[in-house]
Structure formats: structure tokens, C-alpha cells
């Protein structure tokens, strides 16, 4: 199919404002008469609040209000489990819980007043280790609950005992992953404006999911959804991170805005962001795998436990994605998987790009290489003997059909891109120097979109004006990933107009229909389909009108580059003349588009069903150099091959791959939020290292296209799969280079050198 806009690397529609400094982010907004607010956060990970004394703070210069939990109508919120307080009322459960807040004429005055608030605490014993949280008799973080378990997802297929009995070799391994921070470059920022008419408040800021924020704020204010208006601004990165934490921030600002009747602005410092924001779940993973000596997998038994921190947040869904993908993309008759989430008094954890898959893929793809070594087989050969192919049945009993199962293709293309075989052979020979090289790979299948977590539907609105200009609205939000651009490409493709004619509008919950959250790599697939649907309705309407006007059959007409053409490519009319005539004739040229994903299913008790309606497949390969003398680990090259169905914008897809690989590299070799007894140790980028441009390997991004029948123009997902594969690929490459298998992340200097992390303060 020849496309005019789709499948082309067109420029981003938001590029101009972003290279000129005109793009307004949350912290850039100013409203007349606005106040600034700051939050007093506790340093105790678990304590009872005896008393909060605010009188002195209230007398401080510039202060317009000091607030505690008592000032909040409904103090409890939470997207899945309502266990999070806007401000702690009588107990704090993590170091960083807000206990009071101040609105003042300036940020400095608000900060000065915070210091005058006196909070008396009774410190309580806390739980900081998963093993402790799991004990039946351990103290309960949330006393109203039976225990500290947030969730348990079981999955049972066949009979693992039977499967292990068929095995010639059984391997049992334990892995662990660490707490990491999203590290979006823009700290969280919101402004809440109280409104006199029609609704209560308008909320602006760096908001990943405007509808989720609207719901949280409405809950807290005990207001109707229509009374809370959320308008999204440019957002300086999110990666799953600007959801609940921003909702809490917006709720706090809304309480203060209504009380003071003035706009309230809140901007987190980097330290505040580190303290307060949720992070990626650390996992402890136990894997047991059985295989025949020919390398056929017979059974897998998995237990994965996630540290949810003090709140449930997204843990129930994060761990659900883990259970679906836990075996990796391998055919197995016998599987037993249990994934759990537990409360602790650690920083809480939530959505982060990958969402429960990076942890299990690190374990499961490391395991495959360990098994290959035990079997004396190459990692590629072992995988190819077991990978999902067309019509394979997954661990949950789903038949992979209706889309192309392209695992072997992505493997082959990634291997080719990095010259895997030759390097593998070369580095397998003895390397006498301290500096040793190795190459390793990992592969994955990933369910697209929300899956059986929730109903998966999205809406959009396209309005054509008299002059032929087109406004596009979607309920899904630009997070920097390029959504505005690809949605514009899809609309322009269907309507046969140029991209210049399209004005892409920001999400405004008053005008754009609720489309759920911009998560789960679902925007292109679900949102793209809804844009296509709206544009098709309008195209049909225009062609119906044109058919009548020119007395030609509708299927003999086409719209292209702003003109109407007949079959012989004669120009019949300008798009804008047609639309003007239609509007003058009273014909509606606005249309909502709607798309709901095909049916899916999940049995929570047995862990079976068709959890996702389609999947994507990816392979990443890392080539590393390990200095066995110093422990220095350098990632030299990476190849990443991802089947995206169809790349709506190949430049954007590559940008996603490069960015995901680098974020994966940070997760693999450098990043860790260090927490001691619930306290985060380093709260800025001088302590918490994320990859700089100097840490970049050469990255070969390979786009594989097998158009998906359910995707818009065949497109599906790319955002998250790019991030989930690096850690196992790098760990496997390190093992290949050095012979040292590291089973916990990050693969840092000490672990590479001596196989374990050094504890602070010397011997222990």
C-alpha cells in the first residue's frame, strides 16, 4: 500500500514550540494572583502523629493558609485500592508522606512557614524487607487489612510435578531487581485555578493521565467529574511516573485553591520528587525450570514477589503483567506461577515503562542462558527449540493467532545487525587479557495495551472547519512519545489532506472524551484506531456529498493532498471548497471516533485466558567489555529488533528504541535508589546516576514490520518493549565475557568484580 503520510518519518508536530522555548510546561504557567504552596513531609517511615501545631506557621509573612488532613473532605484515594491519604491524618507509613501544607504569596514564604509547623510523632517499628512483610505474624502496615499482601496472581497450566519428572535437567535459580526512579527531567508541577462559574476547579500541569487525575481530585473534593477540568500541558517526560503522584499533588492544590479562592501553584524540587514519587517495583524471583537433554523445556515453576511500598498503587496490575509474561516466549506444557505484591514501609512503587515485565525478563532470560550452558547448547539454539511460533499456545492457554508471531524473525534480524554469530564464536575463545568481551541476547513477547486489566477503549474527536482546517482531539495524552504527530499522520492519511491543515489540540477533559490512561503502550494501537475511525466517518460524509455533487459513484472518488480527484486523477475540487459548501448546507463536519479492543478474557483464580488481543515481539543483543581486573563494565554495542506491526513514523519508532535501550541500560548497570530503613539515601542526580551521552553504546535499531489486522494501518506497540530486554542481554553478555553470572541488578562494578554489592560502612 502506498501511503502519503503514514509510514513516513515526518517531523514532529510539536517540534517548533519545543526548539524555541515556547512550549509551556507546568512550572512555566502563571496565573494572576496565584499563590505558591509547599508540603511538609515526614521523615519517619512509620509513626503515629500525636499532634500537629500550625499556629505559628499561620502567623508567618505571606501565608494565606495552613492545611492538615482535617481540612480535606475526603482524605482517601487510590486508583485500584483506596489506601493513600492526601495528607496523613494520624499515622505516616512512608518517609515522605505529607502531613501539612502551606499556601503563601511566594515559594520562599511557603517554605519558611513549613519550618514553623511542629509535628509530634511516636515512632513505630517498620517493615523494610519483603521476607519480613510476608511473615504471617508480622506487623500490619494497614491494620484494617488481613495481612501485608496486596495481591496474589496464580497461574496453573498442566502439572509441573509431571513436567519436572520428564526433565533430564532441573535448574533452580534466584534473581532480584532493584528500586529505580523514573527520572523524568521535569519535576512534577501543577496549578489549580478555582472557578466561579460552571465548574469548581481547572487543573493545569505535567499530568500523564488527565482522566485519572480528574477522578482522584473529584474523589477528594467530593465533586462530580464534570466539576473538575483538567487541561494537559507539555509534559517533561513521565514513563508511567506522573500519574498518582501528580493526582495527589493536584488534589492538595485543589483543596488550597478552593479554600483561598486563588490559583495555587506547586512545583516539586528534584529532592521532593525523589522523596514523594513512586518508583519501579523491586522483585525477588525464584525460578525452577526443567528440560530434556535435547533442550526441550518440560516445566517451569515461578515465584515472584514485588515490594509495593506503603501503598497498593498499581501493584495489582503491575504483577498481573508479570504473571502473563513470566515464562517468557516459550512453549511449555506445565507451568506454575505465583506473583505477589506486599506492603512495606519503603517508598511506594507504581507504573514505570515496562510495568512488571523488566523484572521477570531479567530473571527468565538470564535463566535461559544458564540452562543453555548447563545443556552445553548455544543460547540461540535453546531458544529456537522452544520459542512461540505461529499458533503456539501460551502459558495461560492462549493460541497466538491472528497476528504474525515473529520471534524468530526479530532474533535473526537483531543477530544480523550486530554480527552476533561471528562475535559469539570469537569471544568464546580464550581471552588472555583482563579486558574480556562477550555478547548476549534476550527476547520477549509482550501483550499490547491494557489487556484484561480493564476495558480497553479510546475516543477522539475531529472537527473540520469551513476553510478546510482540521482540529484533532484525543482523550489520550502526549507524553513526549510523539502521539500528536502520529495521530495527525493517521488523520491526514484518511482525510487526504496535508499535515499543515491539522491543528492538534491538548487534552482538555471538558472537550475530549475519557479514553482511559496513556499507558501500556496503547496509544498508537487503541487511540490510533479511534482517530482513524473519526476520520473515516468524515471522509465518508465528504465523499457522499461529492458523489452527489459531481454525479459520480463514491468509490470512483478520492481525497488526496487537499483535493478531490476522480478515478482518472482529474482534480474536481479543493478540499476546503467542499467543506465550506457542506457546512453552508448544514452538514455536520465533526465526528467522534471510538475504538474498543477485541474481546479478551482472564480467570483470576486459575490464571488462564486470552489476556491480550495481540502481542509484539522483540530481541535485544548486547556486546560488552568487562575489565576483570577493575570490574569496569562497558556496553559497546546493542542491537534492538522490534516488530511494531507497522511504523506510523519510523523516526519516532527509532527514537523510542534508542530511548528505551538507554533506559534499559541504566536499569542494567547503574541505577538504584538506595533505601535504608525506609529512607532514600540520594535524592538528586549527583547520587542517582542515569545514563549520560557518554554512556551510550552504538545502538542498531531494527524496525520489523508485520502489519497487525487489529492495528491502525497495521501498527501496534513500541514504547515499553524497548526497555524490558537490555538487562538480561547485558547480564548474559557479562557471563559470556567473564564466566561470572550475576543474578541481581544493577550489574555494577562490585557485582561484576566480586559478585555482590558492597555494604555501606565497611564490614558487615
Amino acid at each position, binding site marked *: 500500500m502506498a501511503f502519503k503520510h503514514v509510514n513516513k518519518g515526518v*517531523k514532529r508536530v510539536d517540534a517548533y514550540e519545543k526548539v524555541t*522555548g515556547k512550549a509551556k510546561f507546568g512550572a512555566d504557567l502563571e496565573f494572576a494572583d496565584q499563590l505558591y504552596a509547599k508540603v511538609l513531609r515526614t521523615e519517619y517511615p512509620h509513626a503515629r502523629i500525636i499532634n500537629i501545631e500550625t499556629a505559628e506557621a499561620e502567623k508567618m509573612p505571606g501565608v494565606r493558609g495552613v492545611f492538615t488532613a482535617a481540612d480535606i473532605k475526603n482524605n482517601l484515594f487510590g486508583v485500584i485500592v483506596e489506601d493513600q491519604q492526601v495528607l496523613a491524618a494520624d499515622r505516616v507509613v512512608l518517609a515522605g508522606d505529607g502531613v501539612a501544607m502551606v499556601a503563601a504569596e511566594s515559594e520562599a514564604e511557603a517554605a519558611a512557614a513549613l519550618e514553623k509547623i511542629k509535628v509530634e510523632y511516636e515512632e513505630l517499628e517498620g517493615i523494610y524487607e519483603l521476607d519480613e512483610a510476608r511473615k504471617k505474624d508480622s506487623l500490619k502496615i494497614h491494620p484494617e487489612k488481613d495481612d501485608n499482601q496486596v495481591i496474589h496472581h496464580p497461574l496453573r497450566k498442566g502439572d509441573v510435578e509431571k513436567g519436572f519428572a520428564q526433565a533430564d535437567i532441573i535448574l533452580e535459580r534466584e534473581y532480584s531487581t532493584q528500586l529505580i526512579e523514573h527520572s523524568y527531567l521535569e519535576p512534577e508541577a501543577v496549578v489549580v485555578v478555582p472557578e466561579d462559574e460552571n465548574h469548581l476547579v481547572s487543573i493545569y500541569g505535567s499530568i500523564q493521565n488527565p482522566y485519572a487525575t480528574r477522578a482522584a481530585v473529584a474523589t477528594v473534593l467530593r465533586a462530580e467529574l464534570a466539576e473538575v477540568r483538567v487541561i494537559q500541558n507539555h509534559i517533561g*517526560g513521565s514513563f508511567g511516573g506522573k500519574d498518582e503522584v501528580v493526582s495527589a499533588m493536584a488534589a492538595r492544590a485543589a483543596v488550597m485553591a478552593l479554600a483561598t479562592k486563588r490559583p495555587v501553584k506547586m512545583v516539586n*524540587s528534584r529532592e521532593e520528587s525523589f522523596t514523594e514519587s513512586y518508583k519501579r517495583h523491586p522483585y525477588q524471583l525464584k525460578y525452577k525450570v526443567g528440560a530434556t537433554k535435547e533442550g526441550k523445556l518440560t516445566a517451569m515453576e515461578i515465584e515472584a514477589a514485588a515490594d509495593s511500598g506503603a501503598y497498593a498503587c498499581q501493584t495489582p496490575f503491575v504483577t498481573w503483567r508479570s504473571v502473563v509474561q513470566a515464562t517468557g516466549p516459550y512453549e511449555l506444557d506445565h507451568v506454575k506461577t505465583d506473583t505477589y505484591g506486599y506492603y512495606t514501609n519503603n517508598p511506594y512503587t507504581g507504573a514505570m515503562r515496562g510495568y512488571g515485565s523488566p523484572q521477570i525478563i531479567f530473571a527468565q532470560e538470564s535463566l535461559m542462558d544458564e540452562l543453555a550452558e548447563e545443556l552445553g547448547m548455544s543460547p540461540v539454539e535453546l531458544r529456537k527449540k522452544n520459542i512461540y511460533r505461529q499458533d503456539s499456545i501460551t502459558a495461560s492457554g492462549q493460541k497466538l493467532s491472528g497476528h504474525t508471531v515473529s520471534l524468530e524473525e526479530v532474533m535473526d534480524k537483531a543477530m544480523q545487525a550486530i554480527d552476533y554469530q561471528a562475535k559469539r564464536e570469537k569471544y568464546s575463545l580464550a581471552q588472555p587479557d583482563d579486558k574480556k568481551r562477550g555478547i548476549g541476547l534476550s527476547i520477549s513477547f509482550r501483550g499490547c495495551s491494557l489487556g484484561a486489566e480493564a476495558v480497553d477503549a479510546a475516543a477522539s474527536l475531529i472537527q473540520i472547519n469551513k476553510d478546510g482546517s482540521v482540529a484533532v482531539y484525543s482523550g489520550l495524552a502526549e507524553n513526549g512519545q510523539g502521539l500528536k504527530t502520529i495521530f495527525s499522520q493517521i488523520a491526514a492519511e484518511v482525510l487526504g489532506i496535508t499535515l499543515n491543515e491539522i491543528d492538534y489540540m491538548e487534552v482538555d477533559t471538558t472537550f475530549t472524551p475519557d479514553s482511559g490512561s496513556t499507558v501500556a503502550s496503547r496509544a498508537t494501537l487503541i487511540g490510533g484506531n479511534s482517530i482513524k475511525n473519526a476520520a473515516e466517518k468524515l471522509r465518508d460524509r465528504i465523499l457522499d456529498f461529492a458523489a452527489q455533487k459531481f454525479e459520480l459513484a463514491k468509490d470512483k472518488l478520492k481525497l488526496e493532498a487537499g483535493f478531490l480527484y476522480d478515478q482518472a486523477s482529474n482534480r474536481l475540487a479543493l478540499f476546503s471548497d467542499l467543506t465550506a459548501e457542506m457546512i453552508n448546507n448544514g452538514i455536520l463536519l465533526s465526528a467522534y471516533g471510538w475504538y474498543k479492543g477485541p474481546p479478551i478474557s482472564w480467570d483470576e483464580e486459575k490464571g488462564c485466558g486470552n489476556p491480550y488481543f495481540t502481542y509484539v515481539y522483540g530481541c535485544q543483543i548486547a556486546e560488552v567489555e568487562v575489565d576483570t581486573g577493575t570490574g569496569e563494565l562497558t556496553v559497546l554495542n546493542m542491537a534492538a529488533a522490534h516488530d511494531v506491526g507497522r511504523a506510523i513514523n519510523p523516526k519516532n519508532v527509532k527514537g523510542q528504541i*534508542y*530511548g528505551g535501550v538507554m533506559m534499559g541500560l541504566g536499569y542494567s548497570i547503574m541505577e538504584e535508589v538506595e533505601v535504608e530503613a525506609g529512607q532514600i539515601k540520594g535524592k538528586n542526580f*549527583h547520587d542517582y546516576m542515569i545514563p549520560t*551521552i*557518554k554512556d*551510550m553504546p552504538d545502538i542498531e535499531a531494527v524496525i520489523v514490520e508485520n502489519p497487525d489486522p487489529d492495528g491502525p494501518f497495521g501498527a501496534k506497540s513500541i514504547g515499553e518493549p524497548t526497555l524490558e530486554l537490555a538487562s538480561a542481554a547485558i547480564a548474559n553478555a557479562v557471563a559470556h565475557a567473564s564466566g561470572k553470572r550475576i543474578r541481581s541488578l544493577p550489574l555494577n562494578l562490585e557485582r561484576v568484580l566480586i559478585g555482590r554489592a558492597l555494604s555501606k560502612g565497611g564490614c558487615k
Partner: protein
Amino acid sequence: MAKLDVEITVNSKKYNLKVGSQERLLDTIRKELKLTGTKEGCSVGECGACTVIVDDKAVNSCMILTAQVDGSEIITVEGLESKKGLSPLQKAFVEKQAIQCGFCTPGMLMSALALLKNNPRPNKEKIKTALEGNLCRCTGYQQIIEAVETAAKEWGV
């Protein structure tokens, strides 16, 4: 607190300001001059989002006091576009899709501009060194390098 008289030129426009002795250049730019294209990401000189050019050198404006730059010529991201349109470097960022969320972009442009002003034909390593202080969490840096290379090879600054 005593205010100091400071004269600075920002994007070719002269300003006579009274600033506090502790006022950071970043705050002068964002709050006084309302040039919000310059971003604050960490406040400790680690992320580079606040990078501006002071007398041809890229500096973190969160780490320098306005009083220290008295008499200096400063360029912020708002100073790149001219009546002729986007600067070659801006065009290259657009062309190479070197932008995702856009929060690091102003600082990246400033560091890249300072590099190209001093070294119009940098190799890849020089580009990496010049941009090492600018964190980006979205792009993986690849397309940013391509943009700087393109500007250097084809268009100049």
C-alpha cells in the same frame, strides 16, 4: 537584603536590573525576564536543563549568580530563532527528531551551540563531551548527536 545593579545583555537586548546578591541567573531569566524556555530540572548543576550561553560558554544557570555575570552577553533558547526563521541547529533538531518530551531540548541546544561556536567541525566524541552535562531520559541521545552532526556538516550554527 541589598540589591545590586547589574547590566546584562540577553538575546541581544540590554537589561539594567536590580538583583539580590543571592539571586541565581536561572531565576532572573525565568522570573524577571519571563524567558521560561530555560528549564529547572535539578537545581544542583547535574541535569543541564538550565544551560544558557554566557559570553560564548555554556553554563548551568542554576549554579551561577546573576551578580556574577554583570556585563555579560547571554543567549537563551528564545534567542535562537530570527526573522529568517529557525536557526540551523534548531532545524537540525527538528529534522532528526532529536526531541521527545522537549524538557531537555533548550539546554541541549545551548550546549550544542556553544560547542559549534568554538568548534564548527566537532567529531562524535567532541559532541559527546560537550553534551555530557545535559541529561535526556527520552531520546537515548542518538538523534541528538545526529542533529548536531547535521548542523555542523551541512548548515553551521
